[in-house]
């Protein structure tokens, strides 16, 4: 019976799509498409990294210009340095987690936002003067990021399309 067959096909399509979307199920906070999940993990990674860097350079500037070895005892005593390092570790763990499902060719440029955030934080919290060249760099990175994001969205659309096609064959 053609009608039943069509119905069963539709159900199967449904199931496949559900299975695909289900890759990020099990974690309510992370539910959604895989791109959303990647972004949800990378944003805290980028902020942890940026705040960590601010802590580190704040403390290092207080210490001043020293030798690497004479720094060690100072570093162990300083809670700011510990906090900064801990944040960098958290950021690394999140970065690695995102790589467990996302493309390296997407995650790597995506994480370059951290360079932009670092410049903004440095100018805001550390009162560093940011040159015009740097702001040009910020602009270029931003355009690059938009392109990378668009390519990822396109790839995801194609992946979804392929799954739908595969299930109707």
């Amino acid at each position, binding site marked *: 019976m053609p009608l039943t067959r069509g119905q069963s096909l539709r159900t199967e399509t449904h199931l496949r799509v559900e299975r695909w979307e289900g890759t990020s199920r099990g974690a309510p906070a992370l539910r959604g498409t895989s791109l959303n999940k990647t972004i949800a993990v990378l944003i805290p990674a980028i902020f942890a990294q940026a705040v960590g860097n601010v802590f580190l350079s704040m403390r290092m500037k207080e210490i001043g210009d020293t030798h690497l070895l004479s720094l060690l005892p100072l570093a162990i005593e300083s809670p700011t340095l510990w906090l900064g390092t801990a944040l960098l570790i958290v950021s690394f763990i999140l970065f690695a987690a995102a790589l467990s499902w996302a493309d*390296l060719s997407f995650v790597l*440029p995506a994480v370059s936002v951290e360079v932009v955030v670092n410049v903004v934080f440095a100018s805001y919290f550390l009162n560093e003067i940011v040159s015009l060249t740097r702001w040009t760099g910020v602009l270029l*990175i931003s355009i690059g990021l938009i392109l990378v994001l668009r390519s990822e969205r396109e790839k995801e659309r194609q992946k979804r399309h392929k799954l739908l096609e595969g299930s109707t064959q």
Partner: protein
Amino acid sequence: MATIILADSAGDVFLTKGMKEVGEISTINPRTLLAIGRKVIGNRSFLAGIFFISIFFFSFLIVLSWADLSFVFPAKSLVYVVSTLGAKWILKETVPLQRWGGIFLVCLGVALISLP
């Protein structure tokens, strides 16, 4: 400088390979995450990634002690391009033209920012 860029890129590629071998993390259950963490630490590709990143870090420190900062920092941004080549050739990721364009712009932007 070549050692720095290659080591950093190799680190990225191996790290990704290891994480892909462990599989997609799709839980926030602490106990499961701990088990995944243990699996990650025991993964050879992941450890190779950490090894290369350490090589990168120390060679970077060494180079910083003698080389010109205005050369080292911008040159380091080539990692974006080299890692993407690694992702394409070794990890078999498809890299569309639009993404290549974006990565080149990011590379250029990072180079500009890291000029002293």
